[in-house]
């Protein structure tokens, strides 16, 4: 049983999704989905523990030896990502039933859980697999279900957002497909490990260069790197709140994982950073992304839009860490991956509660909310502080490592710019705080109760995680360090 964990990680949610069809009552489907997600979480915990104690786990699907068969290869990086995805998915699902009951018509609720599990399975598959073509297949599984999930939003703009995401996402995925095809053409293999050994023999050819360029652009579309982020704000803003919380915390992280995997493991560091001026390109795009997106966030009237733009800015930070391309830089990226999932999970789940009670996330409706929904708004404030990077929150840890990495490289001006970027976050978080605590409620609004416990509980679970991992960094730092070192080919 233990030996089959890598494949069970993906297969369990994949097979559970169609089984939901038999559960016509939404509550049953929810319970089942929650159970499956929790099971996936337990599997990922065991996998991480195994990887950290005994090294890389290789699983050959159907007993076919790699590179002929597909292999799943779990190293510290995958295991870390699997843990983030399953943990967030489980916590978000805790709140799902209450929120979905209100936002999605009853007859579609079961379908919602099917799509949710499919999307989860897709993301887990992308991360677990060691086969380049398999990545594409799982990418499409998760994306197609994501488009449908976003289209479930109440507002008709959700449909338009889903359509735009579908076009952009498909173009991105097809780019990745082209890249994989060209790699196969040159090497005759699709196994990532095998590719990493065979690509250097042909790396001077234009085909390999083209393959790399296609893959990078495709992935950047998926991860909403500025200026390829245009699909993201509306998709996040009009999707059902649960979907936003899930995707904001996981979807772009998976794309960052792919970027790291292809750059470091498949193409190798020397090729990746010499073929394209990747370092300068990503540093510039990351910085511009931080400033452009944070500034746009300040002017948003819809709080979901505000946090969506903030997400794009946070991706900018991850890309800066990536562009440093040292162990510390990569650690900063991976830490921020984890930490950002905790922050945005908490924030968007808290918005779930707000939507549940007042049915809107317009900033003007937040007036006076600090006194009417004290626990929800306290969660938003702590999440916001974490986003800014205040000490004792996880945000501080990732900013600390990022600045450390940048300074190690001697990029002082970049460090200053990162700090300035954080100040912009202060401004947009302050706008919410100002509304919630220093303005009187809009006239004619009745008594508003605190969000229900079923939403409040997962929110605070994530908020406490935000503080806990901001103080006790052993787990996150240890794992990210192992992951970064294994990518650079040193250490275990």
């Amino acid at each position, binding site marked *: 049983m233990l030996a089959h964990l890598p494949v069970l990680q993906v297969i369990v949610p994949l097979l559970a999704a169609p089984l939901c069809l038999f559960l016509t009552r939404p509550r049953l489907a929810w319970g089942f989905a929650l159970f499956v997600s929790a099971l996936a979480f337990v599997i990922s915990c065991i996998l991480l523990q195994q990887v950290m104690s005994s090294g890389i786990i290789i699983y050959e699907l159907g007993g076919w030896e790699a590179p002929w068969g597909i292999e799943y290869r779990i190293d510290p990086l995958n295991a870390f990502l699997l843990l983030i995805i399953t943990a967030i998915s489980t916590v978000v699902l805790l709140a799902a039933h209450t929120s979905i009951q209100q936002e999605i018509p009853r007859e579609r609720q079961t379908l919602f859980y099917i799509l949710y599990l499919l999307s989860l399975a897709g993301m887990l598959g992308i991360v677990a697999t060691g086969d380049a073509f398999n990545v594409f297949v799982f990418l499409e599984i998760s994306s197609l279900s994501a488009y449908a999930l976003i289209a479930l939003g109440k507002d008709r703009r959700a449909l338009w957002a889903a359509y735009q995401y579908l076009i952009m996402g498909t173009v991105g995925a097809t780019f990745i*497909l082209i890249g994989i095809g060209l790699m196969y053409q040159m090497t005759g293999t699709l196994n990532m490990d095998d590719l990493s050994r065979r690509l250097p023999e042909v790396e001077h050819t234009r085909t390999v260069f083209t393959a790399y360029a296609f893959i990078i652009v495709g992935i950047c579309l998926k991860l909403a790197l500025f200026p390829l982020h245009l699909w993201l704000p509306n998709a996040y803003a009009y999707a059902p709140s649960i979907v936003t919380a899930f995707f904001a915390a996981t979807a772009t992280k998976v794309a960052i994982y792919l970027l790291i995997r292809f750059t470091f493991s498949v193409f190798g560091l020397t090729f990746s950073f010499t073929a394209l001026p990747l370092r300068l390109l990503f540093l510039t795009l990351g910085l511009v992304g931080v400033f452009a997106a944070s500034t746009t966030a300040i002017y948003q009237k819809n709080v979901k839009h505000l946090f969506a733009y903030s997400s794009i800015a946070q991706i900018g930070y991850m890309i800066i860490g990536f562009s440093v391309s040292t162990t510390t830089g990569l650690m900063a990226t991976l830490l921020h991956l984890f930490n950002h999932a905790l922050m945005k999970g908490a924030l968007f789940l808290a918005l779930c509660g707000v939507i549940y009670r007042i049915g809107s996330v317009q900033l003007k409706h937040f007036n006076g909310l600090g006194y009417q929904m004290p626990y929800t708004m306290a969660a938003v404030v702590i999440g916001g502080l974490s986003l800014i990077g205040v000490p004792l929150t996880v945000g501080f840890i990732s900013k600390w490592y990022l600045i450390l990495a940048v300074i190690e490289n001697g990029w002082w001006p970049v460090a200053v710019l990162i700090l300035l970027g954080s100040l912009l976050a202060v401004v947009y978080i302050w706008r919410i705080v100002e509304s919630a605590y220093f303005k009187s409620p809009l006239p004619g609004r009745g008594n508003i109760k605190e969000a229900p416990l079923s939403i409040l509980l997962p929110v605070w679970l994530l908020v406490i995680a935000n503080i806990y991992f901001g103080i006790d960094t052993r787990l996150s730092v240890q794992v990210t360090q192992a992951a970064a070192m294994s990518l650079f080919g040193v250490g275990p």
Partner: protein
Amino acid sequence: MGHYNYWIVIVLMMIGFYIVIAHGNLIKKIIGLGIFQTSVFILYISMANVDGGTAPIFAEGICQYSNPLPHVLILTAIVVGIATTALGLALTLRIKEAYGTIEEEEIQEKDNLDC
């Protein structure tokens, strides 16, 4: 002209991509996306071709055959393409119901009015 297939791939790719970007009609965009994806299918099929090779059948007298793996890969990608097209068309249908139009500009206009 040795790379005849690849030229076709590039031409189709650019036509498809152009339609996706330039056209405001949602159905036309999906058609463009279809052409774009098809060009990639041809790319895979072309690279699998072996000069003088036959279909990969295990039988006597057949010693040279095309590489079957890209065929299998692209079968998967075709299925994905169909799913994407179907989902795109379904969304277009719902957009038509909700907005009364499938022109990008008009949808954008109606959204701006809502804000």
